[in-house]
């Protein structure tokens, strides 16, 4: 009898433990489950939206995985890559290169910019070990200033920009919005198929699948192994002869380069580029999505990326409508988006700390238990 009870309590504890460890995704599943019926959207519409947004967003979020593997936390270094991608897109738009060639050229141009920014970011983060998240956040603001200097003042005056459609009327600087009509959804539409009314951008998904394979492969390389070692214990890795600083810089550079590609994929789907604000919140939304998917500051998987994108976007599709139906104000959706993003990041950080502290306290518990056993 008592044994049965014990079994039951251990099963209950297991379930509770699972829920505790995955409380953020569980919370979002609940929110979505409540909001979907209220919003009144059809499943087909929701599916269509989710598929579109996955194609748009997943690549960007994948760029976050490698720094996490190297122990640099959820890292705003990707924002720098996003800026590099935008600058590349401005040039390609100005040169009037359309469609897929334009996208590919933009990616190629973004690479050197991303690498340079990644090196800078990596160097600085090596001086701020253990505080990568907040440091990279501030770096992203700093580089945003440099970006504005280049785009707002130098483009058109020092850097030649031919087309007046993207130039500000005063003759230099780029307009608030750059239309990417020439390459709008060029990747998404190539090879796209429709299944039961849902448009599936096959090529985009193929690129994402390839990227996932690359990440899986990368984990098995020597460099990937070194990054995991550095991520778990820098001192031990250093004692074993791994060049810790260099490894960390490489991980950031990979992240910025991938983020540059990701931003180009993101913007070609949108079809226009808000020149001065596209990158400003993208880092935060990507990080929030990843955390919603169940990742933590020191551990994230490809599964977290997909689950996170689905849940995060599902909520943004249904929340404004659900919120509007309840309160009569559709603006609540946008408010919700920002509020939830910051909230999720805060919760994830707090949970990470408490987990660490609990692990520390459990040592004392063990001692006490051992002493009682000895009685």
């Amino acid at each position, binding site marked *: 009898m008592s044994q049965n009870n014990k079994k039951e309590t251990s099963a209950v504890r297991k379930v509770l433990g699972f829920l505790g460890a995955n409380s953020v995704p569980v919370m979002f599943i609940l929110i979505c489950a409540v909001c979907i019926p209220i919003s009144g959207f059809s499943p087909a519409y929701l599916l269509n939206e989710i598929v579109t947004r996955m194609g748009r967003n997943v690549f960007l979020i994948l760029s976050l995985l490698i720094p996490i593997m190297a122990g640099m936390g959820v890292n705003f270094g990707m924002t720098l890559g996003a800026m590099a991608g935008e600058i590349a897109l401005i040039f390609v738009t100005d040169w009037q290169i359309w469609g897929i060639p334009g996208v590919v050229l933009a990616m190629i141009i973004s690479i050197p910019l991303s690498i340079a920014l990644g090196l800078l970011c990596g160097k600085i983060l090596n001086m701020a070990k253990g505080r990568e998240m907040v440091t990279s956040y501030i770096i992203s603001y700093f580089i945003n200033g440099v970006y504005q200097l280049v785009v707002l003042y130098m483009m058109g005056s020092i850097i030649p920009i031919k087309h007046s459609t993207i130039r500000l009327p005063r003759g230099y600087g780029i307009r608030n919005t750059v239309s990417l009509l020439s390459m709008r959804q060029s990747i998404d539409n190539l090879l796209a198929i429709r299944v039961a009314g849902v448009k599936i951008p096959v090529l985009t998904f193929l690129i994402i699948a390839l990227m996932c394979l690359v990440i899986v492969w990368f984990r*098995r390389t*020597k460099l990937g*192994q*070194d990054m995991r*070692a550095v991520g778990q*214990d820098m001192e*031990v890795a250093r004692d*074993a002869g791994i060049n810790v600083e260099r490894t960390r810089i490489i991980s950031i550079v990979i992240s910025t380069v991938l983020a540059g590609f990701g931003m180009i994929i993101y913007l070609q789907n949108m079809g226009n580029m808000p020149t001065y604000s596209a990158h400003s919140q993208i880092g935060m939304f990507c990080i929030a999505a990843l955390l919603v998917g169940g990742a933590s500051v020191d551990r994230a998987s490809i599964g977290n990326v997909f689950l996170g994108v689905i849940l995060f976007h599902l909520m943004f599709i249904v929340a404004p409508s659900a919120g509007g139906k309840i309160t009569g104000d559709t603006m609540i959706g946008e408010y919700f988006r920002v509020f939830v993003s910051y909230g999720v990041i805060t919760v994830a950080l707090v949970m990470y700390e408490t987990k660490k502290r609990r692990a520390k306290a459990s*040592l004392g518990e063990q001692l006490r238990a051992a*002493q009682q056993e000895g009685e």
Partner: protein
Amino acid sequence: MNAPLLELKNIKKDFFGNQVLTDINLTLNEGEVLGLVGENGAGKSTLMKILFGMNVIRDTGGYGGDVLLNGQKVNFASPFDALAAGIGMVHQEFSLIPGFSATENILLNREPQKKSVVSEVFGQRLNTLDRSAMRKGASDAIEKMGVEIDGEMVINDMPVGHKQFTEIARELSKEQLKLLILDEPTAVLTEREAAALLDSIRGMSSRGIAVIFITHRLQEILNVCDKVVVMRDGEIVKDVAAQETNVTEITRWMVGRSVNAAAASHREPPESDTVMSIRRLWVDMPGETVRDVSLDVRRGEILGIGGLAGQGKLGIPNGVMGLYQAGGTVTFEGKEIPLNAPRKCLDSQLAFVSEDRRGVGLLLDESLEWNIAFPAMQIQDKFLKPLLGGLIKWRDEKAIADVTKRYIDELQIRCTSSRQKAKELSGGNQQKVCLAKAFALEPQFLFVSEPTRGIDVGAKALVLEALKKFNRESGVTIVMISSELEELRQICDRIAIVSGGRIAGILPATDSSEDFGALMVSQVV
């Protein structure tokens, strides 16, 4: 005739004028197992650091004398050079990646790799790992060690003994290994595991690998070593074949120094009531775990707590004063003191001079005045002038300066002025400031932890004398924790020896060093 594998000639080392090694001479042949013993601070670790080319040695001015390997003089610029020359070392602290399996750790940064097209273009680091070759390499090393461990098990899930074996297997997996240094490898092992390790040491030696084995468990040395080297105060006092000696003899060599130095000016221990009683205390202090300690402190006495490093003697004051997580009960003057609450201890007129002088003990960037007056000001509202009917409290600079001057004179703190910054003082004078700070609290009960660690002989005598005077004149009960038995014997009435996190015994300070030595190693874990 072949040159011996390792030869040390007249090795000397000083840390800023503080001589820690004098004329060390040692030879070691292939396949020989050498047991190195000595009290804490005898210089064992420093000697091993020299041998292993650790940075700290070069940063502090290098060493004197020669290290010869196979008859060739060597001078390692870094541990990597030592590794390349065939010296491996297993440290007391684990150097393992927690989330990796044993296999991954054993071959850390030496993984067998497969080339691919990508790595041809982008460089070596994009080679993929050859998992099956890794498994083979690791299992070979584990086999060489002769102890079964699961190569796929993640370090985090391992019992502590298996972590130790993983480290040893890592050294053994290095092809060039000729000399393995084991620094207290059995400290964390159970008896069975320790026995397995001793077997594997014999196995290594029969394969021609020389081993330097450092331990406090003397019986193990006699069981496995060919010769025993005993160090004391930076010198080798004995170098004998293991079968020609026994535990008692080694203990005497370890602790025995000129007996007349100690036991000076002893008084009869005061037979008085218990002022503090500690019951079933456990403390989770990393590296100094305390398990189930019960202890009574008598009013007005100086109680010493001694023992080897890592056995838990530092955990006792840190646990009672609330600096590390602890459990059990502590009563002081009949009242229970809550644990894990430093402020409550201080309010009950307990004071603590921490062994972590620079971290816990001092406000390094502040003046002496501030350092000495700060706790009294915070805790007892001393050195404060009430203004506006007590609404605002103002610092009483004059009173602070006066009390600081008094302690500077009393303890002979060498400084330019009472406003000098604490970080500019030497270690000995910093220690005196720590004491002054505790004295200014005018406590009824004082914990002093390692008061003489890292300070010179002159300052040492002064510190000990000041403690003694404080005890005799103000009637303060003092509990002093120290690794140096002789200094405990100089000023304490009774000495408790901690071994394996527990009190191994309490003896009057006048008992012989051998008795204390036996207690120290009695329950070593």
